[in-house]
Protein backbone atom coordinates (compact mmCIF):
# COMPACT_ATOMS: atom_id res chain seq x y z
CA UNK A 1 0.00 0.00 0.00
CA UNK A 2 2.73 2.41 1.01
CA UNK A 3 4.13 2.92 -2.45
CA UNK A 4 0.76 3.81 -3.83
CA UNK A 5 0.14 6.77 -1.61
CA UNK A 6 0.64 10.08 -3.33
CA UNK A 7 0.37 8.88 -6.92
CA UNK A 8 -2.73 8.59 -9.05
CA UNK A 9 -3.53 4.92 -9.35
CA UNK A 10 -5.63 4.35 -12.40
CA UNK A 11 -5.12 0.64 -12.77
CA UNK A 12 -6.27 -0.09 -9.29
CA UNK A 13 -8.73 2.76 -9.12
CA UNK A 14 -11.47 0.91 -7.34
CA UNK A 15 -9.26 0.03 -4.43
CA UNK A 16 -8.06 3.59 -4.04
CA UNK A 17 -11.63 4.82 -4.30
CA UNK A 18 -12.72 2.42 -1.61
CA UNK A 19 -9.88 3.51 0.60
CA UNK A 20 -10.74 7.13 0.04
CA UNK A 21 -14.38 6.44 0.73
CA UNK A 22 -13.57 4.64 3.92
CA UNK A 23 -11.61 7.70 4.87
CA UNK A 24 -14.59 9.98 4.31
CA UNK A 25 -17.43 7.82 5.54
CA UNK A 26 -17.81 7.71 9.28
CA UNK A 27 -20.47 6.27 11.51
CA UNK A 28 -21.90 9.76 11.91
CA UNK A 29 -25.53 8.83 12.53
CA UNK A 30 -25.02 7.08 15.84
CA UNK A 31 -22.23 9.35 17.03
CA UNK A 32 -24.33 12.34 16.13
CA UNK A 33 -27.17 10.98 18.23
CA UNK A 34 -24.84 10.48 21.18
CA UNK A 35 -23.47 13.98 20.76
CA UNK A 36 -26.99 15.37 20.68
CA UNK A 37 -27.88 13.43 23.77
CA UNK A 38 -24.88 14.91 25.55
CA UNK A 39 -25.85 18.40 24.38
CA UNK A 40 -29.38 17.81 25.63
CA UNK A 41 -28.10 16.86 29.07
CA UNK A 42 -25.79 19.89 29.21
CA UNK A 43 -28.70 22.08 28.15
CA UNK A 44 -30.98 20.72 30.85
CA UNK A 45 -28.26 21.23 33.48
CA UNK A 46 -27.70 24.84 32.37
CA UNK A 47 -31.44 25.50 32.47
CA UNK A 48 -31.70 23.96 35.92
CA UNK A 49 -28.87 26.18 37.20
CA UNK A 50 -30.88 29.24 36.21
CA UNK A 51 -34.50 28.17 36.55
CA UNK A 52 -34.39 26.47 39.95
CA UNK A 53 -32.99 29.49 41.85
CA UNK A 54 -35.40 31.75 39.96
CA UNK A 55 -38.34 29.57 40.99
CA UNK A 56 -37.08 29.48 44.57
CA UNK A 57 -36.50 33.24 44.65
CA UNK A 58 -38.59 33.92 47.79
CA UNK A 59 -36.75 31.15 49.69
CA UNK A 60 -33.28 32.21 48.58
CA UNK A 61 -33.76 35.92 49.16
CA UNK A 62 -32.83 37.33 52.56
CA UNK A 63 -34.21 40.74 51.49
CA UNK A 64 -36.77 41.97 48.99
CA UNK A 65 -35.77 42.90 45.40
CA UNK A 66 -36.54 46.56 46.08
CA UNK A 67 -35.08 46.73 49.58
CA UNK A 68 -32.62 49.62 49.61
CA UNK A 69 -29.74 50.04 51.99
CA UNK A 70 -28.11 53.46 51.89
CA UNK A 71 -25.17 52.20 53.98
CA UNK A 72 -24.29 49.35 51.63
CA UNK A 73 -24.12 50.74 48.12
CA UNK A 74 -21.83 49.19 45.50
CA UNK A 75 -20.62 46.41 47.79
CA UNK A 76 -18.38 44.02 45.87
CA UNK A 77 -19.52 40.40 45.59
CA UNK A 78 -18.62 38.30 48.60
CA UNK A 79 -19.62 34.86 49.79
CA UNK A 80 -20.00 35.89 53.43
CA UNK A 81 -23.58 37.08 53.04
CA UNK A 82 -26.23 35.82 50.67
CA UNK A 83 -27.43 39.42 50.19
CA UNK A 84 -24.09 40.53 48.76
CA UNK A 85 -23.30 37.25 46.96
CA UNK A 86 -23.36 39.21 43.70
CA UNK A 87 -22.70 42.58 45.29
CA UNK A 88 -25.08 45.49 45.65
CA UNK A 89 -26.12 48.30 43.33
CA UNK A 90 -26.20 52.09 43.65
CA UNK A 91 -29.17 51.93 46.07
CA UNK A 92 -27.65 49.12 48.10
CA UNK A 93 -30.11 46.62 46.65
CA UNK A 94 -28.91 43.02 46.49
CA UNK A 95 -27.96 42.10 42.91
CA UNK A 96 -28.43 38.39 43.75
CA UNK A 97 -32.01 38.93 44.87
CA UNK A 98 -32.79 41.18 41.93
CA UNK A 99 -31.32 38.66 39.47
CA UNK A 100 -33.58 35.94 40.91
CA UNK A 101 -36.70 38.10 40.82
CA UNK A 102 -35.65 39.56 37.47
CA UNK A 103 -35.62 36.04 36.04
CA UNK A 104 -39.29 35.70 36.94
CA UNK A 105 -40.09 38.71 34.76
CA UNK A 106 -37.72 37.75 31.93
CA UNK A 107 -38.67 34.09 31.74
CA UNK A 108 -42.34 34.75 32.54
CA UNK A 109 -42.54 37.34 29.78
CA UNK A 110 -40.93 35.02 27.25
CA UNK A 111 -43.38 32.25 28.15
CA UNK A 112 -46.20 34.75 27.60
CA UNK A 113 -44.66 35.61 24.22
CA UNK A 114 -44.63 32.03 22.96
CA UNK A 115 -48.12 31.34 24.33
CA UNK A 116 -49.65 34.43 22.69
CA UNK A 117 -47.57 34.49 19.50
CA UNK A 118 -47.54 30.71 19.17
CA UNK A 119 -51.29 30.34 19.54
CA UNK A 120 -52.09 33.15 17.14
CA UNK A 121 -49.48 32.07 14.59
CA UNK A 122 -50.49 28.41 14.78
CA UNK A 123 -54.17 29.29 14.33
CA UNK A 124 -53.41 31.46 11.32
CA UNK A 125 -51.13 28.81 9.83
CA UNK A 126 -53.76 26.08 10.30
CA UNK A 127 -56.46 28.16 8.66
CA UNK A 128 -54.22 29.28 5.79
CA UNK A 129 -52.77 25.83 5.20
CA UNK A 130 -55.95 23.81 5.50
CA UNK A 131 -58.42 26.10 3.77
CA UNK A 132 -55.99 27.54 1.22
CA UNK A 133 -57.78 29.60 -1.39
CA UNK A 134 -58.11 33.35 -1.17
CA UNK A 135 -58.15 33.43 2.64
CA UNK A 136 -54.99 31.36 2.83
CA UNK A 137 -53.34 33.46 0.16
CA UNK A 138 -54.13 36.71 1.96
CA UNK A 139 -52.95 35.42 5.33
CA UNK A 140 -49.67 34.22 3.86
CA UNK A 141 -49.03 37.50 2.03
CA UNK A 142 -49.43 39.40 5.30
CA UNK A 143 -47.06 36.87 6.88
CA UNK A 144 -44.54 37.51 4.08
CA UNK A 145 -44.84 41.24 4.62
CA UNK A 146 -44.18 40.94 8.36
CA UNK A 147 -41.20 38.69 7.65
CA UNK A 148 -39.77 41.38 5.38
CA UNK A 149 -38.89 43.46 8.45
CA UNK A 150 -35.72 42.57 10.34
CA UNK A 151 -37.18 41.14 13.56
CA UNK A 152 -36.23 43.73 16.11
CA UNK A 153 -37.35 46.55 13.82
CA UNK A 154 -40.90 45.20 13.87
CA UNK A 155 -40.80 44.88 17.66
CA UNK A 156 -39.47 48.44 17.96
CA UNK A 157 -42.18 49.76 15.65
CA UNK A 158 -44.85 48.06 17.75
CA UNK A 159 -43.47 49.45 21.01
CA UNK A 160 -43.34 52.87 19.35
CA UNK A 161 -47.08 52.60 18.74
CA UNK A 162 -48.03 51.04 22.08
CA UNK A 163 -45.57 52.82 24.36
CA UNK A 164 -42.90 51.29 26.63
CA UNK A 165 -44.03 48.72 29.21
CA UNK A 166 -43.53 45.03 29.94
CA UNK A 167 -46.97 44.06 28.60
CA UNK A 168 -46.39 46.01 25.40
CA UNK A 169 -42.95 44.46 24.99
CA UNK A 170 -44.57 41.02 25.25
CA UNK A 171 -47.15 42.00 22.62
CA UNK A 172 -44.43 43.41 20.36
CA UNK A 173 -42.25 40.29 20.49
CA UNK A 174 -45.33 38.04 20.14
CA UNK A 175 -46.25 39.89 16.94
CA UNK A 176 -42.79 39.10 15.58
CA UNK A 177 -43.30 35.42 16.45
CA UNK A 178 -46.72 35.15 14.75
CA UNK A 179 -45.55 35.08 11.11
CA UNK A 180 -42.79 32.57 11.90
CA UNK A 181 -45.22 30.15 13.52
CA UNK A 182 -47.78 30.74 10.77
CA UNK A 183 -45.33 29.90 8.01
CA UNK A 184 -44.14 26.67 9.60
CA UNK A 185 -47.64 25.48 10.52
CA UNK A 186 -49.04 26.44 7.13
CA UNK A 187 -46.49 24.23 5.38
CA UNK A 188 -47.27 21.31 7.66
CA UNK A 189 -51.04 21.79 7.32
CA UNK A 190 -50.87 21.93 3.55
CA UNK A 191 -49.06 18.60 3.50
CA UNK A 192 -51.34 16.91 5.99
CA UNK A 193 -54.56 18.08 4.35
CA UNK A 194 -54.07 15.70 1.42
CA UNK A 195 -52.97 12.63 3.37
CA UNK A 196 -55.25 9.60 2.87
CA UNK A 197 -56.54 9.49 6.44
CA UNK A 198 -57.56 13.12 6.30
CA UNK A 199 -59.32 12.57 2.98
CA UNK A 200 -61.04 9.54 4.46
CA UNK A 201 -62.22 11.62 7.38
CA UNK A 202 -63.53 14.25 4.99
CA UNK A 203 -65.30 11.59 2.95
CA UNK A 204 -66.99 10.40 6.13
CA UNK A 205 -68.48 13.86 6.47
CA UNK A 206 -66.16 15.48 9.01
CA UNK A 207 -66.24 19.30 8.92
CA UNK A 208 -63.14 21.51 8.61
CA UNK A 209 -63.11 22.34 12.31
CA UNK A 210 -63.10 18.69 13.32
CA UNK A 211 -60.37 17.85 10.80
CA UNK A 212 -58.19 20.80 11.78
CA UNK A 213 -58.41 20.08 15.50
CA UNK A 214 -58.28 16.28 15.38
CA UNK A 215 -55.98 15.59 12.44
CA UNK A 216 -54.07 18.61 11.20
CA UNK A 217 -53.10 20.16 14.52
CA UNK A 218 -51.62 16.95 16.00
CA UNK A 219 -49.63 16.48 12.81
CA UNK A 220 -48.26 19.99 12.97
CA UNK A 221 -47.48 19.74 16.69
CA UNK A 222 -43.85 18.54 16.47
CA UNK A 223 -42.97 21.57 14.36
CA UNK A 224 -44.79 23.82 16.82
CA UNK A 225 -42.96 22.31 19.79
CA UNK A 226 -39.55 22.76 18.18
CA UNK A 227 -40.39 26.31 17.19
CA UNK A 228 -41.57 27.05 20.74
CA UNK A 229 -38.32 25.86 22.31
CA UNK A 230 -36.30 27.97 19.92
CA UNK A 231 -38.56 30.95 20.51
CA UNK A 232 -38.40 30.72 24.30
CA UNK A 233 -34.73 31.57 23.92
CA UNK A 234 -35.26 34.23 21.28
CA UNK A 235 -38.11 35.81 23.25
CA UNK A 236 -36.13 36.07 26.47
CA UNK A 237 -33.30 37.75 24.53
CA UNK A 238 -35.65 40.21 22.88
CA UNK A 239 -37.63 41.02 25.99
CA UNK A 240 -34.28 41.72 27.64
CA UNK A 241 -33.15 43.77 24.63
CA UNK A 242 -36.28 45.92 24.83
CA UNK A 243 -35.75 46.23 28.59
CA UNK A 244 -32.14 47.26 27.98
CA UNK A 245 -33.29 49.93 25.51
CA UNK A 246 -35.74 51.30 28.08
CA UNK A 247 -38.70 50.14 26.00
CA UNK A 248 -39.73 47.17 28.14
CA UNK A 249 -39.95 46.81 31.89
CA UNK A 250 -39.75 50.14 33.64
CA UNK A 251 -37.63 50.61 36.80
CA UNK A 252 -37.64 49.70 39.63
CA UNK A 253 -39.10 46.37 38.44
CA UNK A 254 -36.13 44.03 38.03
CA UNK A 255 -35.75 42.35 34.62
CA UNK A 256 -32.45 41.02 33.27
CA UNK A 257 -32.15 43.37 30.28
CA UNK A 258 -33.24 46.40 32.23
CA UNK A 259 -30.78 45.46 35.03
CA UNK A 260 -27.89 45.30 32.56
CA UNK A 261 -28.83 48.76 31.38
CA UNK A 262 -28.99 49.94 35.01
CA UNK A 263 -25.55 48.56 35.67
CA UNK A 264 -24.02 50.07 32.56
CA UNK A 265 -23.90 53.50 34.21
CA UNK A 266 -21.70 52.17 37.00
CA UNK A 267 -19.77 49.69 34.86
CA UNK A 268 -16.33 51.12 35.58
CA UNK A 269 -16.79 51.20 39.37
CA UNK A 270 -19.11 48.21 39.95
CA UNK A 271 -18.97 45.65 37.12
CA UNK A 272 -21.10 43.15 39.02
CA UNK A 273 -24.32 45.13 38.70
CA UNK A 274 -24.40 44.65 34.91
CA UNK A 275 -22.50 41.38 34.57
CA UNK A 276 -24.57 38.98 36.69
CA UNK A 277 -28.03 39.58 35.21
CA UNK A 278 -26.51 39.23 31.73
CA UNK A 279 -24.73 36.05 32.78
CA UNK A 280 -27.99 34.45 33.93
CA UNK A 281 -29.62 35.55 30.69
CA UNK A 282 -26.79 34.06 28.63
CA UNK A 283 -26.77 30.73 30.50
CA UNK A 284 -30.53 30.45 30.14
CA UNK A 285 -30.41 31.09 26.38
CA UNK A 286 -27.51 28.69 25.80
CA UNK A 287 -29.38 26.01 27.77
CA UNK A 288 -32.56 26.55 25.76
CA UNK A 289 -30.64 26.42 22.47
CA UNK A 290 -29.01 23.10 23.37
CA UNK A 291 -32.33 21.57 24.39
CA UNK A 292 -34.03 23.01 21.32
CA UNK A 293 -31.42 21.58 18.94
CA UNK A 294 -31.74 18.15 20.49
CA UNK A 295 -35.54 18.31 20.32
CA UNK A 296 -35.41 19.34 16.69
CA UNK A 297 -33.34 16.29 15.82
CA UNK A 298 -35.62 14.07 17.83
CA UNK A 299 -38.98 15.33 16.58
CA UNK A 300 -38.02 16.32 13.09
CA UNK A 301 -35.37 13.89 11.84
CA UNK A 302 -35.67 15.04 8.23
CA UNK A 303 -34.61 18.60 9.03
CA UNK A 304 -31.09 19.44 7.98
CA UNK A 305 -29.13 20.52 11.03
CA UNK A 306 -27.70 23.88 10.10
Amino acid at each position, binding site marked *: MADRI*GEPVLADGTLALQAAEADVARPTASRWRLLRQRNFVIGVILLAIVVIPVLLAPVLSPVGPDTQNAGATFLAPSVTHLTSLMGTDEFGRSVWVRVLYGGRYSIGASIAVVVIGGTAGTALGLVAGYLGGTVGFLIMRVVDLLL*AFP*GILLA*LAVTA*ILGPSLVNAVIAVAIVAVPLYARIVEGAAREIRNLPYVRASRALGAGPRHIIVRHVLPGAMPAVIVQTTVWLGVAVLWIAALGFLGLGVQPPTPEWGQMVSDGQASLTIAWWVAVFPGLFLAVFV*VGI*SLVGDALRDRLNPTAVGA
Partner: protein
Amino acid sequence: MFYVGKRLLALVVLLVAISILVFLMLQLIPGSPVSALLGQSATNPAAVARLTQELGLNRPLPVQYWRWLDGVLHGNLGYSYQNQQPVSVLIGQNLPSTLALAGAGLLISLVGGILLGAVAAVRRDTPADSVTMGIAMTLVALPSFWLGLILILVFAVALPVFPVFGGSGLRGLVLPAFTLGLGVLGITARFVRSSLLEVMDSPHVVAARAKGLNRRTVFLKHIARNALLPVVTIIGLQIGSLLSGAVLVEMVFSRPGIGRLLVQSILNKDYATVQATVLIIAAFYAVTNLVVDLLYPVLDPRIGGA
Protein backbone atom coordinates in the same frame (compact mmCIF):
# COMPACT_ATOMS: atom_id res chain seq x y z
CA MET B 1 -33.38 38.21 -17.64
CA PHE B 2 -36.96 37.13 -17.02
CA TYR B 3 -35.90 35.99 -13.55
CA VAL B 4 -34.35 39.38 -12.76
CA GLY B 5 -37.46 41.21 -14.00
CA LYS B 6 -39.72 39.05 -11.90
CA ARG B 7 -37.62 39.63 -8.79
CA LEU B 8 -37.51 43.38 -9.40
CA LEU B 9 -41.29 43.46 -9.73
CA ALA B 10 -41.63 41.50 -6.48
CA LEU B 11 -39.33 44.02 -4.81
CA VAL B 12 -41.48 46.93 -5.96
CA VAL B 13 -44.62 45.22 -4.62
CA LEU B 14 -42.85 44.53 -1.33
CA LEU B 15 -41.61 48.13 -1.02
CA VAL B 16 -45.13 49.45 -1.65
CA ALA B 17 -46.53 47.07 0.98
CA ILE B 18 -43.85 48.14 3.47
CA SER B 19 -44.60 51.80 2.79
CA ILE B 20 -48.34 51.25 3.38
CA LEU B 21 -47.63 49.50 6.68
CA VAL B 22 -45.25 52.25 7.79
CA PHE B 23 -47.75 54.91 6.72
CA LEU B 24 -50.52 53.22 8.71
CA MET B 25 -48.23 53.06 11.76
CA LEU B 26 -48.90 56.72 12.38
CA GLN B 27 -52.65 56.13 12.24
CA LEU B 28 -52.37 53.42 14.89
CA ILE B 29 -50.75 55.68 17.46
CA PRO B 30 -53.33 56.82 20.00
CA GLY B 31 -54.38 60.41 19.36
CA SER B 32 -54.32 62.22 16.05
CA PRO B 33 -51.32 61.93 13.70
CA VAL B 34 -50.89 65.69 13.89
CA SER B 35 -50.35 65.70 17.64
CA ALA B 36 -48.11 62.63 17.26
CA LEU B 37 -45.96 64.41 14.70
CA LEU B 38 -45.85 67.74 16.46
CA GLY B 39 -45.21 66.36 19.93
CA GLN B 40 -44.75 69.30 22.29
CA SER B 41 -45.71 71.79 19.59
CA ALA B 42 -49.21 70.27 19.31
CA THR B 43 -50.56 72.94 21.69
CA ASN B 44 -49.99 75.59 19.04
CA PRO B 45 -53.27 75.79 17.05
CA ALA B 46 -51.60 77.51 14.12
CA ALA B 47 -49.03 74.72 13.75
CA VAL B 48 -51.78 72.11 14.04
CA ALA B 49 -53.85 73.78 11.33
CA ARG B 50 -50.83 74.17 9.07
CA LEU B 51 -49.73 70.55 9.39
CA THR B 52 -53.31 69.28 8.95
CA GLN B 53 -53.44 71.23 5.73
CA GLU B 54 -49.97 70.10 4.67
CA LEU B 55 -50.65 66.41 5.24
CA GLY B 56 -54.11 66.71 3.76
CA LEU B 57 -55.58 65.09 6.87
CA ASN B 58 -59.02 66.32 5.89
CA ARG B 59 -58.77 64.19 2.74
CA PRO B 60 -59.45 60.43 2.44
CA LEU B 61 -56.76 58.01 3.69
CA PRO B 62 -55.59 56.82 0.23
CA VAL B 63 -55.07 60.45 -0.83
CA GLN B 64 -53.06 61.05 2.36
CA TYR B 65 -50.97 57.99 1.63
CA TRP B 66 -50.33 59.12 -1.93
CA ARG B 67 -49.23 62.57 -0.78
CA TRP B 68 -46.93 61.06 1.85
CA LEU B 69 -45.43 58.58 -0.62
CA ASP B 70 -44.94 61.33 -3.19
CA GLY B 71 -43.01 63.28 -0.56
CA VAL B 72 -40.92 60.27 0.44
CA LEU B 73 -40.01 59.54 -3.17
CA HIS B 74 -38.87 63.13 -3.51
CA GLY B 75 -36.69 62.84 -0.44
CA ASN B 76 -39.13 64.49 1.96
CA LEU B 77 -39.19 62.17 4.95
CA GLY B 78 -41.00 64.62 7.21
CA TYR B 79 -39.86 67.09 9.82
CA SER B 80 -38.65 66.24 13.29
CA TYR B 81 -40.12 68.88 15.59
CA GLN B 82 -38.08 67.58 18.53
CA ASN B 83 -34.81 68.02 16.66
CA GLN B 84 -35.93 71.05 14.66
CA GLN B 85 -34.55 69.41 11.54
CA PRO B 86 -35.85 67.59 8.49
CA VAL B 87 -35.74 63.84 9.15
CA SER B 88 -33.79 63.29 5.92
CA VAL B 89 -30.95 65.39 7.37
CA LEU B 90 -30.96 63.36 10.60
CA ILE B 91 -30.86 60.10 8.69
CA GLY B 92 -28.13 61.41 6.41
CA GLN B 93 -26.02 62.27 9.44
CA ASN B 94 -26.50 58.89 11.10
CA LEU B 95 -26.53 56.43 8.23
CA PRO B 96 -22.77 56.39 7.37
CA SER B 97 -21.84 55.44 10.93
CA THR B 98 -24.29 52.51 10.93
CA LEU B 99 -23.12 51.32 7.52
CA ALA B 100 -19.50 51.37 8.71
CA LEU B 101 -20.47 49.39 11.81
CA ALA B 102 -22.56 46.85 9.89
CA GLY B 103 -19.88 46.48 7.21
CA ALA B 104 -17.12 45.87 9.75
CA GLY B 105 -19.40 43.47 11.62
CA LEU B 106 -20.13 41.54 8.44
CA LEU B 107 -16.43 41.27 7.66
CA ILE B 108 -15.65 39.94 11.15
CA SER B 109 -18.49 37.44 11.01
CA LEU B 110 -17.46 36.14 7.59
CA VAL B 111 -13.73 35.81 8.32
CA GLY B 112 -14.26 34.34 11.79
CA GLY B 113 -17.21 32.21 10.77
CA ILE B 114 -15.43 30.65 7.81
CA LEU B 115 -12.33 29.90 9.91
CA LEU B 116 -14.34 28.40 12.76
CA GLY B 117 -16.61 26.44 10.42
CA ALA B 118 -13.65 25.11 8.43
CA VAL B 119 -11.88 23.90 11.57
CA ALA B 120 -15.04 22.13 12.71
CA ALA B 121 -15.63 20.49 9.34
CA VAL B 122 -12.06 19.34 8.79
CA ARG B 123 -11.89 17.94 12.32
CA ARG B 124 -15.38 16.51 12.16
CA ASP B 125 -16.48 14.48 15.19
CA THR B 126 -13.37 15.34 17.17
CA PRO B 127 -13.15 17.45 20.33
CA ALA B 128 -12.05 20.37 18.10
CA ASP B 129 -15.39 20.11 16.30
CA SER B 130 -17.37 20.08 19.55
CA VAL B 131 -15.42 22.99 20.97
CA THR B 132 -15.71 25.22 17.90
CA MET B 133 -19.40 24.47 17.49
CA GLY B 134 -19.91 25.07 21.20
CA ILE B 135 -18.27 28.48 20.81
CA ALA B 136 -20.43 29.20 17.75
CA MET B 137 -23.62 28.33 19.61
CA THR B 138 -22.67 30.35 22.66
CA LEU B 139 -21.90 33.39 20.52
CA VAL B 140 -25.35 33.17 18.92
CA ALA B 141 -27.00 32.90 22.33
CA LEU B 142 -25.12 35.72 24.06
CA PRO B 143 -27.12 38.93 24.39
CA SER B 144 -25.17 41.41 22.25
CA PHE B 145 -25.69 44.31 24.65
CA TRP B 146 -24.16 42.24 27.43
CA LEU B 147 -21.29 40.99 25.27
CA GLY B 148 -20.56 44.62 24.43
CA LEU B 149 -20.28 45.51 28.12
CA ILE B 150 -17.99 42.53 28.75
CA LEU B 151 -15.73 43.61 25.89
CA ILE B 152 -15.70 47.13 27.35
CA LEU B 153 -14.77 45.74 30.78
CA VAL B 154 -11.93 43.63 29.38
CA PHE B 155 -10.50 45.82 26.61
CA ALA B 156 -11.31 49.32 27.80
CA VAL B 157 -11.40 49.13 31.60
CA ALA B 158 -9.06 46.28 32.61
CA LEU B 159 -6.72 46.68 29.64
CA PRO B 160 -7.16 50.24 28.42
CA VAL B 161 -6.64 49.53 24.74
CA PHE B 162 -9.84 50.98 23.31
CA PRO B 163 -12.07 53.90 24.33
CA VAL B 164 -14.86 52.99 26.82
CA PHE B 165 -17.71 54.75 25.06
CA GLY B 166 -17.90 56.69 21.86
CA GLY B 167 -14.50 57.34 20.41
CA SER B 168 -14.18 58.32 16.80
CA GLY B 169 -12.44 56.74 13.85
CA LEU B 170 -11.19 53.23 13.51
CA ARG B 171 -10.22 52.78 17.16
CA GLY B 172 -13.75 53.58 18.25
CA LEU B 173 -15.12 51.13 15.72
CA VAL B 174 -13.20 48.04 16.88
CA LEU B 175 -15.18 47.05 19.99
CA PRO B 176 -18.64 47.82 18.54
CA ALA B 177 -17.78 45.94 15.33
CA PHE B 178 -16.58 42.90 17.27
CA THR B 179 -19.66 42.95 19.48
CA LEU B 180 -21.86 42.99 16.40
CA GLY B 181 -19.75 40.58 14.33
CA LEU B 182 -19.25 37.95 17.05
CA GLY B 183 -23.01 37.53 17.49
CA VAL B 184 -23.51 36.83 13.80
CA LEU B 185 -20.30 34.80 13.49
CA GLY B 186 -21.85 31.77 15.16
CA ILE B 187 -24.52 31.46 12.48
CA THR B 188 -21.92 31.74 9.73
CA ALA B 189 -19.72 29.11 11.37
CA ARG B 190 -22.55 26.58 11.63
CA PHE B 191 -23.57 27.20 8.05
CA VAL B 192 -20.01 26.92 6.74
CA ARG B 193 -19.50 23.67 8.61
CA SER B 194 -22.57 21.95 7.17
CA SER B 195 -21.86 23.34 3.72
CA LEU B 196 -18.29 22.01 3.82
CA LEU B 197 -19.37 18.61 5.14
CA GLU B 198 -21.87 18.24 2.32
CA VAL B 199 -19.23 18.89 -0.33
CA MET B 200 -16.64 16.72 1.46
CA ASP B 201 -18.84 13.69 0.97
CA SER B 202 -19.57 14.34 -2.70
CA PRO B 203 -18.15 12.02 -5.39
CA HIS B 204 -15.81 14.53 -6.98
CA VAL B 205 -13.96 14.94 -3.70
CA VAL B 206 -13.68 11.19 -3.29
CA ALA B 207 -12.32 11.04 -6.84
CA ALA B 208 -9.83 13.82 -6.12
CA ARG B 209 -8.59 11.93 -3.09
CA ALA B 210 -8.44 8.72 -5.09
CA LYS B 211 -6.23 10.46 -7.62
CA GLY B 212 -3.82 10.92 -4.76
CA LEU B 213 -4.01 14.68 -4.49
CA ASN B 214 -2.79 15.91 -1.15
CA ARG B 215 -5.33 17.01 1.44
CA ARG B 216 -4.48 20.68 1.13
CA THR B 217 -5.12 20.82 -2.60
CA VAL B 218 -8.30 18.78 -2.25
CA PHE B 219 -9.55 21.10 0.45
CA LEU B 220 -8.72 24.38 -1.24
CA LYS B 221 -9.49 23.52 -4.85
CA HIS B 222 -12.23 20.95 -4.61
CA ILE B 223 -14.01 21.51 -1.33
CA ALA B 224 -13.71 25.13 -0.23
CA ARG B 225 -14.42 26.55 -3.67
CA ASN B 226 -17.73 24.77 -3.92
CA ALA B 227 -18.74 24.94 -0.30
CA LEU B 228 -18.13 28.62 0.31
CA LEU B 229 -20.35 29.75 -2.55
CA PRO B 230 -23.61 29.06 -0.67
CA VAL B 231 -22.25 31.21 2.15
CA VAL B 232 -23.13 34.19 -0.04
CA THR B 233 -26.81 33.33 0.41
CA ILE B 234 -26.69 33.77 4.16
CA ILE B 235 -25.22 37.24 3.84
CA GLY B 236 -28.76 38.37 3.03
CA LEU B 237 -30.02 36.78 6.22
CA GLN B 238 -27.15 38.31 8.17
CA ILE B 239 -27.91 41.82 7.03
CA GLY B 240 -31.14 41.54 9.01
CA SER B 241 -29.26 40.36 12.10
CA LEU B 242 -26.62 43.04 11.62
CA LEU B 243 -29.21 45.81 11.38
CA SER B 244 -31.07 44.49 14.44
CA GLY B 245 -27.80 44.09 16.28
CA ALA B 246 -26.66 47.58 15.33
CA VAL B 247 -29.62 49.05 17.23
CA LEU B 248 -28.36 47.46 20.47
CA VAL B 249 -24.65 47.92 19.83
CA GLU B 250 -25.08 51.61 19.10
CA MET B 251 -26.96 52.01 22.36
CA VAL B 252 -24.32 50.11 24.36
CA PHE B 253 -21.45 52.15 22.97
CA SER B 254 -23.37 55.45 22.77
CA ARG B 255 -22.41 55.47 19.14
CA PRO B 256 -24.27 57.69 16.67
CA GLY B 257 -26.21 55.75 14.08
CA ILE B 258 -29.57 54.96 12.64
CA GLY B 259 -30.43 52.40 15.33
CA ARG B 260 -29.75 54.81 18.17
CA LEU B 261 -31.69 57.48 16.30
CA LEU B 262 -34.66 55.10 16.11
CA VAL B 263 -34.58 54.14 19.80
CA GLN B 264 -34.20 57.74 20.95
CA SER B 265 -37.02 58.84 18.67
CA ILE B 266 -39.26 56.16 20.17
CA LEU B 267 -38.35 57.28 23.70
CA ASN B 268 -38.91 60.96 22.74
CA LYS B 269 -42.14 60.16 20.89
CA ASP B 270 -40.64 61.77 17.79
CA TYR B 271 -42.91 59.83 15.46
CA ALA B 272 -41.87 61.49 12.21
CA THR B 273 -38.33 60.20 12.77
CA VAL B 274 -39.57 56.78 13.93
CA GLN B 275 -41.66 56.39 10.80
CA ALA B 276 -38.86 57.43 8.46
CA THR B 277 -36.17 55.29 10.13
CA VAL B 278 -38.38 52.19 10.11
CA LEU B 279 -39.09 52.80 6.43
CA ILE B 280 -35.43 53.32 5.55
CA ILE B 281 -34.18 50.25 7.45
CA ALA B 282 -36.92 47.98 6.04
CA ALA B 283 -36.36 49.24 2.49
CA PHE B 284 -32.59 48.85 2.85
CA TYR B 285 -33.09 45.29 4.11
CA ALA B 286 -35.41 44.41 1.20
CA VAL B 287 -33.07 45.85 -1.42
CA THR B 288 -29.88 44.26 -0.06
CA ASN B 289 -31.64 40.91 0.15
CA LEU B 290 -32.59 41.18 -3.50
CA VAL B 291 -29.05 42.15 -4.47
CA VAL B 292 -27.67 39.10 -2.68
CA ASP B 293 -30.26 36.87 -4.36
CA LEU B 294 -29.40 38.26 -7.77
CA LEU B 295 -25.69 38.04 -7.12
CA TYR B 296 -25.83 34.34 -6.41
CA PRO B 297 -26.60 33.14 -9.97
CA VAL B 298 -23.80 35.39 -11.20
CA LEU B 299 -21.31 33.69 -8.87
CA ASP B 300 -22.64 30.21 -9.49
CA PRO B 301 -23.63 29.73 -13.15
CA ARG B 302 -25.41 26.47 -12.29
CA ILE B 303 -28.19 28.43 -10.59
CA GLY B 304 -28.72 30.89 -13.44
CA GLY B 305 -31.60 30.88 -15.87
CA ALA B 306 -33.93 29.24 -13.39
